[in-house]
């Protein structure tokens, strides 16, 4: 019994407190920061509203006349004690939030600007429930987690000014785990709430269409094709799948691909402000955090491999690859037979890949290019089958 409880405690500690590189959180700070700036400047709904009005920053209230907090106010329960700002103070706070968001996204003084930004935006959020939106609530939670997790050690002006890294490059897994749980909970409860006759019969999508809410390019298509029922049934299934599949190594890539397509389809159908982009950015937290856990052996004399290195420098955002330069010989760890076949990759588990398999592995580990890895794998297996048919021996 004592061993069992010790085992559970160890598992708990490993899950929440194991040390890992902060690169993923640093990357998320930039992605999420950019999306937050989109929200603050009114650059939302690209695919549904063709008239995007950019203003720096965009204020919630256009005049004193529509300023809700000078009339009937219902603050978020538990926060009624907070003082209500005047209209002018509210505008000033929004301006400060915009400046702090710029600092935080670029990673300048992020140790201070992060918590300050989270608290100021959280303050504006809890003042009044009438303006509640899921995307603003998501901003508040993620800004709090990122703001207090000191995520400017890389990809930041702080690190640039300090010659590469700033502060601790490793930290506990807790902030990333919290965000993972949040993403799963969003999909899980989103799916659960749709298990009702109204949604599953297609009525809600039909009503949304009739009320003029489906106005993106795909919205018009859905209205014309009356594609309500298949959409209604498949959405909660996909959401349940995403809530679970994002956690497993074997399914995470297909889940991310499905999730990105799902959110792009939503964004092309209905105006959900920045919510789709927020969810897509949050997929970063499901990436494996092992920095430089895969090694590429490079011969700089070969043009193709030199190009590959440049390519990796540009797109290896999760810093998964370490490189070993081979100069006129084979590294001791690699059998000589492999070095004749172009690109050489040693994976996290120690497996060695060459040629097209290695190239497919490299693409599969880059955030922007992983779908192409599947295409290459299919192409490679077709080619192998054809060559086997031609040379059965």
């Amino acid at each position: 019994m004592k061993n069992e409880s010790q085992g559970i405690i160890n598992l708990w500690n490993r899950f929440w407190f194991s040390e890992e590189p902060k690169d993923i959180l640093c990357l998320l700070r930039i992605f999420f920061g950019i999306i937050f700036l989109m929200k603050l400047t009114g650059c939302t709904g690209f695919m549904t509203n063709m008239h995007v009005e950019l203003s720096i920053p965009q204020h919630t209230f256009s005049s004193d006349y529509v300023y809700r907090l000078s009339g009937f106010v219902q603050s978020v329960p538990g926060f009624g004690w907070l003082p209500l700002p005047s209209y002018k103070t509210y505008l000033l706070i929004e301006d400060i939030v915009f400046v702090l968001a710029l600092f935080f996204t670029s990673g300048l003084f992020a140790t201070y600007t992060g918590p300050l930004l989270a608290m100021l935006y959280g303050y504006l959020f809890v003042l009044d429930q009438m303006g509640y939106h899921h995307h603003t609530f998501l901003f508040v939670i993620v800004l709090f987690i990122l703001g207090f997790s000191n995520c400017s050690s890389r990809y930041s002006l702080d690190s640039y000014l300090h010659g590469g890294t700033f502060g601790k490059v490793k930290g506990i897994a807790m902030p990333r785990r919290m965000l993972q749980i949040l993403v799963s909970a969003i999909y899980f409860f989103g799916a659960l709430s749709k298990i009702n006759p109204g949604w599953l019969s297609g009525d809600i999508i039909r009503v949304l269409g009739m009320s003029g809410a489906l106005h993106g390019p795909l919205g018009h298509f859905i209205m014309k094709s009356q594609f309500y029922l298949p959409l209604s049934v498949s959405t909660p299934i996909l959401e349940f799948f995403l809530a679970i599949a994002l956690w497993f190594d074997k399914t995470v890539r297909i889940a991310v691909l499905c999730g990105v397509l799902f959110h792009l389809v939503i964004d092309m159908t209905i105006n959900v402000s920045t919510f789709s982009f927020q969810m897509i950015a949050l997929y970063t937290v499901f990436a494996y955090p092992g920095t430089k856990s895969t090694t590429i052996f490079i011969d700089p004399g070969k043009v193709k491999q030199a190009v590959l290195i440049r390519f990796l420098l540009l797109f290896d955002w999760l810093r998964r690859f370490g490189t070993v330069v081979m100069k006129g010989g084979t590294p001791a760890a690699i059998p000589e037979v492999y070095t004749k076949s172009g690109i050489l990759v040693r994976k996290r588990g120690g497996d060695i890949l060459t040629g097209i398999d290695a190239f497919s592995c490299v693409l599969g580990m880059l955030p922007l290019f992983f779908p192409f890895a599947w295409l290459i794998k299919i192409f490679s297996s077709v080619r192998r089958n054809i060559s086997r048919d031609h040379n059965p021996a």
Partner: protein
Amino acid sequence: MIAVCYTMRIFLNAVILLFVLAVVTLGIRSLLVNDSRYGWGMFASQTDYMVSYIIHYKDRTDTYHTGAELRGLARIKLSPGRRSLTRYGIGTLRSWLGNYTCYIYKNNRTEGVLFAEARVIYTINGKDEIRSERIRCPQNSDRGSY
């Protein structure tokens, strides 16, 4: 130093537990009370509603007309005699109206006032069935159906 680390670990564990508890509790709450705010229920229902307000006195009732206290989004969502839509569920509407009815009651608490009441008629997901509810402050809501 060890004591500081120990206290920090306890604090972090408490934050984790609170976070997980909040995420799960808010999610379940949103399903139970049909109020998808804070609980990630998205597009679970579409409520089409119209509201009116009445102040009940000992000997009479008066229709309450909203004034400058409703501004912006609150004016759009809570003004009487006007059709509005919400995607957040009937529970959200009950919460808005409950709070606003109490606001009306507190600000019109003259002699003889018994309670303020919001009467709402609504349809869910475009169905023909029209439902109604009365939400009172300081009393509980009284649900019914036409």
